[in-house]
């Protein structure tokens, strides 16, 4: 009997002993929180690699304000509740100065209250559906008006009149398509169909039948992950490969294209704010450094570059603010010029990144050939003015 109580007390005390103290002299802790297991791991591990690489580079060059960065890596396990849980741990137990991470909107939404409550700062590297404006998040991934809307404008100029929208059933595709539909209608063109498939879905027979019946000029595709393989395969089997019926995808980057076999998706279009094939010495150096570290065939994607530049943006902002205090850091970050593989970029007043939009066409070697770029960098707007009028985001 005694043993049992002893055991329980012991267990409670042992867990208590695990807590780590605040940051030691000469170092500063930051959190790196991505899914290292589960369905999202494949994408998020590469972002973690890029973030860690930036931290290593900064440490090798003397750290931040003379302090060495100590990254605390945690696994979000592709589960939003775990993301919230681990964010709490990083901030409360590890006392990190800031956190880099998140991928799905679900993970960001679950973490947001944690960052607001603790007044900490999250750097979020992935394009998303907008409609969010929190002082405790730096949004470096594209807003809808920096990725999907420019791609639509490109398609309209290219003469496509009838649009078919297909996506995985979650928040980004549904919201992106809502915005697309409003723009398509406003520009006097036609949306001839809109279909969603559950995440990870593999059967597209009914969807393809509907595409055949609707006869679109182009498909706008926001399917996620492996569903893309099934979709392109079954499209090809039904005689509709991307060269016959163009497809514009928003979730297929270099890594995804190469993993699913370029032959399948060759000639399809993609809209991003970064392609591995972009010119510029900074990009060449970044690609070479990453591939020296993680294998010469490692693909470089848009979210990785955003994760990488987030770390540098944080460093620059800390040094400008001369403080690790999140409120001072985010104020300092606005308008601050940051050199990155995408060229010089900066954060706007609404804490989103000002960046250029590109449309690329997938080549047989797994790289995208740049077909079009926007007329200069686009100011981010979380609330698309056509779809969500009367809303705006002002943080500073």
């Amino acid at each position, binding site marked *: 009997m005694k043993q049992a109580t002893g055991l329980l007390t012991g267990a409670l005390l042992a867990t208590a002993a695990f807590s780590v103290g605040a940051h030691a002299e000469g170092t500063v802790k930051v959190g790196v929180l991505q899914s290292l297991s589960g*369905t999202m*791991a*494949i994408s998020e591990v590469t972002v973690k690699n890029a973030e860690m690489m930036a931290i290593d580079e900064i440490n090798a060059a003397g750290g931040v304000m003379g302090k060495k960065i100590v990254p605390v890596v945690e696994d979000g396990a592709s589960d939003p509740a775990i993301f919230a849980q681990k964010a709490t741990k990083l901030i409360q137990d590890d006392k990190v100065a800031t956190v880099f991470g998140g991928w799905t909107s679900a993970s960001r939404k679950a973490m947001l209250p944690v960052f607001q409550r603790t007044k900490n700062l999250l750097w979020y590297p992935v394009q998303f559906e907008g409609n969010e404006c929190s002082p405790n998040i730096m949004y470096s991934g594209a807003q809808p008006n920096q990725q999907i809307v420019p791609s639509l404008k490109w398609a309209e100029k290219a003469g496509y009149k009838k649009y078919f929208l297909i996506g995985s*059933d979650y928040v980004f595709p549904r919201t992106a398509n809502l915005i697309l539909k409003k723009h398509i209608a406003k520009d006097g063109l036609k949306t001839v169909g809109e*279909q*969603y*498939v*559950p995440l*990870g*879905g*593999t*059967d597209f*027979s*009914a*969807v393809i*039948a*509907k595409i*055949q*019946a609707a006869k679109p000029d182009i498909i706008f595709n926001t399917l996620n*992950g*492996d569903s893309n*393989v*099934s979709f392109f*395969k*079954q499209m*090809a*089997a*039904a*005689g509709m490969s991307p060269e016959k019926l163009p497809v514009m995808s928003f979730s297929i980057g270099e890594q*995804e294209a190469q*993993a*699913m*076999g370029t*032959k*399948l998706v060759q000639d399809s279009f993609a809209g991003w704010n970064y392609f591995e094939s972009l010119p510029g010495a900074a990009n060449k150096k970044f690609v070479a450094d990453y591939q020296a570290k993680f294998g010469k065939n490692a693909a470089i994607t848009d979210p990785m570059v955003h994760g990488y530049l987030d770390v540098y943006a944080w460093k620059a902002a800390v040094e400008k603010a001369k403080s690790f205090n999140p409120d001072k850091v985010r104020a300092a970050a606005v308008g601050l010029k940051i050199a990155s593989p995408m060229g010089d970029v900066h954060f706007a007043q609404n804490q989103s990144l000002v960046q250029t939009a590109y449309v690329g066409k997938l080549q047989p070697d797994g790289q995208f050939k740049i077909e079009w770029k926007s007329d200069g960098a686009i100011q981010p707007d979380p609330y698309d003015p056509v779809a969500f009028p009367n809303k705006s985001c002002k943080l500073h």
Partner: protein
Amino acid sequence: MLDLPLLIGQVFNGFSVASLVVLAALGLALSFGLMRVINMAHGEMLMLGGYLAYLTFLVVPGPLALLVAMPVAFVGAAAVGAVIEVSVIHRLSSRPLDTLLATWGTSLILQQGARDVFGPIGVSVTAPDWLNHSFAIASGPLAGLSLPATRLFILLVAVVVLAALGLFIAKSRIGLLVRAVNQDRMMAAASGINVRQVDLAVFCLGSGIAGLAGVVLALLGPVTPSVGQSYIVPAFLVVILGGLGSMVGTTIAALILGLVSALSQIFLDVSMSQVLVLVFVIVFLQFRPQGVIAVRSRALEE
């Protein structure tokens, strides 16, 4: 607006989905009829078949790779099935619910194993050229309807497997033993049949058929560590709907579910049609709790 090509196309798709699900469900139904256990790792036999097909396509070049992959996947999946039967299922044979849980553990390990060996992103098999076209109807009332060759091939595989299995059970000596054990386990054992071996053989056969399903699945989509999961729940529903261990019941149930799912997708999106299929099963059980084909009462078989 209901246009004819879409309707006919969906009936065809219903058959195509049914043929996949019946291949996935046959093994479950057969073993359930004999041993009253459900193998939750059965979906991973599909996955295994898919990966074996992928490996075969790497080794064997040319248009015949697919025909080589099928026996390879059958044997491979049957062998892994044998290991699972001996190590987990047989040990728990008198406790069906515990078998369910233990085989779910097995399924987790197999999935994570595949993730570590082949990577979390799916691998892909390219359908041979002789399957790479579709039969399109260009004019007449059915204009616009197109039937992809891969789907016709899957239908063919399902028909051949069903016919072969039917013949095997009706005519072969092992089939006779299977029928005997299925009818009355005790009597069969008493009359000298090695019930244990019959169990094992049927389990391997069922796993092998699931392996075959994995090969045809690879023609339609990527092979991922979790590919089995997307087919296993429909397969379970087919077993419930089909009745105990009956091949005919399983086939009819698969057809019903395939058609309900495909036809409802004319009006509904995929998510809603999934919900509808479950509702359909529950309503169906209100009228025929014993399933499509009743071999014996379900309530008295605890």
